């Protein structure tokens, strides 16, 4: 056999065409590298080939293969479709679902090179991230999600049959409006079991006996707290206030909801919780997937499994994906998570394998460790965007991207202040600020339910912490509060509180009289 023929023999595919055995071959080749060389740990893969219309379908129902029915998904579909038809927007090459088996959708139009790229990117990059990142481990259940969505879909369909589409739609509308504030941000404390509780109590008693000193009795105590304070505290404790998970609170404590409405709130809440980790790991998730596909494609090419021509095709779309326009570019629309993530991953690889003195000073833990994949796998498991950037954005990258920070105070009539640039004094500030922009605890408005007037008119009191004059958008807030009031069944008040604990704005909503089948008060 001649050398050329041998080379040809090694190729996974030729040209742009593919069929199912090609996909299988591509997957196996990628798997060999991903598992064998990169040491990735993935859920079993399921690859589904779909049409453009099905891709649009998937878009409009948040990417999930099955979802309950709601008009808003129809709206998104019509919206995406209109853009797609007029050629204003391309469809994504892939969608990948955090489930086990991990489902990746491939578009039928993609060329063989693109399919390879997508398989490497989604079926191995994202897949590894889903399976190993701590946020996903903590908050999502990859094995159960598809079954749960199936349950949700049929449950909501049954509710529609029994209680009418309008009633269900109204509940879903309200729940969707509160979806962004329907997640647990912190892992709940684990419930202690009774035996442990008792043991703890004994320990405390013993400790008190040991430390007993009669002198304490003579020390003058502070002002006695009055009854109202105690009452408030007890009430708050009973209702679990303050509570930032609005949907959870309504599901558990709203007096006027029907059992099926509580279940619907619960479904929406679970869905929101499932997507919560993805919102916090955009940069890392895409960075990981992009880094992985780049590694796999490069190695496939090195082994002669991809021809030079196809490799160039890959490089072209890869460069498009990781393109970051500068701030004064017409195309600029914020940071591209693919670009930022990929650049940081590559930078970490550089620090691990070939560090400068600066790197050794900034990253003593990882500089020069020699095995980039081991370091990266650890990072992928233990960080989210905010902590990732605040730990690993290096001065080298800040210089390379020429990052700078703007401080914009509307009171300052002269203009916008450049508060830090890519120099010795600026690195840390730029890095802290960029990390903050990826902290959804900081960027999302923080709203807590703080009190319920149980003795009086049952008015629900919410507070929005609005430092830096970040008040809420007026008309939308009114609409959301209306939904909230409908679910609560009594008046609702939202106070906006600025940094100095001063109430700057108040919104009030009264519940609409909803007369529906099965309403207790109808």
């Amino acid at each position, binding site marked *: 056999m001649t050398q050329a023929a041998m080379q040809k023999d090694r190729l996974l595919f030729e040209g742009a065409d593919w069929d*199912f055995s090609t*996909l*299988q071959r591509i997957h*196996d080749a990628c798997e060999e590298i991903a598992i064998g060389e990169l040491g990735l740990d993935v859920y*079993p893969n*399921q*690859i*589904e*080939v*779909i*049409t453009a*219309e*099905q891709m649009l*379908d998937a878009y*409009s129902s948040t990417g999930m293969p099955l979802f309950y*029915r709601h*008009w808003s*998904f*129809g*709206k998104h*579909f019509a919206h995406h*479709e209109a*853009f797609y*038809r007029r050629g204003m927007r391309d469809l994504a090459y892939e969608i990948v679902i955090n489930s086990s088996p991990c489902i990746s959708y491939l578009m039928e139009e993609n060329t063989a090179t693109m399919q390879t790229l997508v398989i490497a990117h989604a079926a191995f990059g994202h897949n590894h991230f889903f399976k190993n990142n701590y946020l996903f481990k903590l908050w999502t259940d990859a094995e159960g999600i598809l079954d749960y969505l199936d349950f949700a879909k049929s449950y909501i369909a049954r509710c529609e049959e029994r209680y009418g*589409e309008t009633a269900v*739609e109204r509940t879903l*509308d309200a729940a969707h409006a509160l979806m*962004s*504030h329907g997640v647990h941000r912190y892992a709940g404390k684990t419930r202690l079991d009774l035996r442990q509780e008792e043991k703890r109590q004994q320990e405390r008693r013993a400790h008190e006996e040991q430390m007993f000193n009669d002198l304490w009795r003579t020390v003058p105590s502070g002002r006695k707290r009055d009854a109202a304070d105690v009452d408030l505290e007890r009430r708050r404790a009973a209702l679990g206030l303050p509570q930032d998970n609005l949907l959870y609170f309504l599901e558990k404590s709203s007096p006027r909801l029907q059992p099926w409405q509580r279940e619907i709130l619960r479904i929406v809440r679970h869905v929101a919780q499932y997507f919560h980790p993805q919102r916090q790991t955009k940069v890392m998730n895409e960075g990981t997937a992009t880094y992985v596909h780049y590694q796999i494609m490069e190695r496939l090419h090195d082994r002669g499994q991809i021809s030079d021509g196809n490799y160039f095709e890959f490089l072209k779309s890869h460069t498009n994906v990781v393109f970051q326009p500068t*701030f004064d570019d017409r195309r600029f*629309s*914020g940071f591209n998570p693919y670009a930022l993530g990929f650049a940081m991953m590559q930078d970490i690889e550089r620090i691990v394998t070939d560090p400068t003195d600066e790197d050794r000073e900034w990253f003593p833990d990882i500089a020069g460790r020699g095995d980039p994949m081991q370091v990266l796998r650890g990072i992928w498991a233990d960080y989210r965007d905010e902590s990732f950037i605040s730990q690993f954005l290096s001065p080298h990258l800040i210089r390379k991207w*020429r*990052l700078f*920070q*703007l*401080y914009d*105070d509307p009171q300052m009539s*002269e*203009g*916008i*202040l*450049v508060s830090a*640039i890519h120099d010795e004094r*600026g690195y840390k500030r730029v890095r802290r*600020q*960029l990390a*903050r*922009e990826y902290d959804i605890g900081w960027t999302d*408005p923080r709203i807590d339910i703080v009190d319920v007037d149980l003795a009086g008119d049952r008015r629900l009191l919410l507070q*929005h912490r609005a430092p830096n*004059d*970040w*008040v*809420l958008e*007026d008309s*939308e*807030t009114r*609409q*959301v509060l209306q939904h909230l009031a409908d679910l609560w069944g009594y008046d609702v008040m939202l106070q906006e509180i600025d940094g100095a604990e001063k109430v700057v704005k108040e919104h009030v909503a009264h519940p609409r009289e909803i007369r529906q089948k099965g309403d207790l008060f109808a």
Partner: protein
Amino acid sequence: MHIIDRRLNPRGKSLENRQRFLRRAKDAVQQAVRRSLQSRSIRDVLDGGEVSLPIGGMGEPSFRRAEGGITDHVLPGNRAFVEGDIIPRPPGQGAGRPKEAGQGDGEDGFRFVLTREEFLSVFLDDLELPELAKRRLSETEEMSPVRAGYSISGSPSNLSIDRTTRLAMMRRIALKRPKPAEIEALQRQIDECENEETRLLLEAELKSLTERIRRIPYVDPLDVRYRRFDNEPKPVAKAVMFCLMDVSGSMSEHMKDLAKRFYLLLYLFLSQRYEKVEIVFIRHTEKAEEVDEDTFFYGQATGGTLVSSALAAMRSIIAARFDPTEWNIYAAQASDGDNSYRDEAPTGHLLKHEILPLCQYFAYIEVDEEGGDSLASNSPLWRLYESIRPSAATLAMRKVCRKNEIFPVFHDLFQKRSTQTKAVP
């Protein structure tokens, strides 16, 4: 690893969601569809097409921060700034963070494409022919199949598997068809049997059983049953619409355009909504003629005006082809209101005593120049009809001067009415 080909899955997975969205946005879609009627030629409109909706009422609100406040952000691509520089704010743009593209994009100008069916159903929603009362059986009957038990012959697609297997089972039990298990058991007995004599006996028994099985089939042609359908005649309402249009010299181009637009809407409405509606086109000058659809809409003719000629033509066509006891008869007349003086008495007489008693509904549209007053008219025909109206509840009158009034008037004339209330002028 699994590879699944989903391309063959049924299409239109999100159709249900789309319909819900359209239902939700119904008012807005209707507005948009009507707006698009004015700007486009009606023939184009029929193909469906893109409509643009205001987003109000369909927004999905959430707690969001308003623009403004003190903000900090990091940007890439610094060229010349150093720390402490102050950049003047770009003019026209208020203070605050630069608008994040991709977020509100296209939300206010929400455009999307309606299919032809969706377009027509929105467009023709809540329209109907009033008083479609006479329903009866006629000789060219519409048949509808009705279930009528089972038969022993029929087409394979009507095979009733249920009934067939039940009968087969009854027969098998009645004729004691041996079960496969029995034969197996016997075979096993034979295999294990050591006594030659009993073995022979058993073998004989087995032979008779297998023969029996062969004689008594599992499913016999006797068992087969088919679902039977009888055709039952269905009463239908037959309706005819007379379109009477004045094409005399006094009608200006603008008026003719208005009248034709009106009839196009009517034609569209009838042909889409009712399968069984005949449409008769009559145009008249000083004499009337029945024409086909193309001539009616696109033909050129001119002359004097004798309204009674059209009514007379309508009367003779009814007498010849449409028995008023069987047909629901409708008429829509469009004219500029001119009529020759000597024709007034015959027209009034014809309409009042011969046409109106036969009609379920008679709509009169008066078209006028662009600047006209669409609320009042002083034309001879209008005055004449006005005098007849008090005694004829089925007569409705409207006046149209501008293109954009066509649809409201049309809609008003043919919208669904709960009871007997008629359109009032």
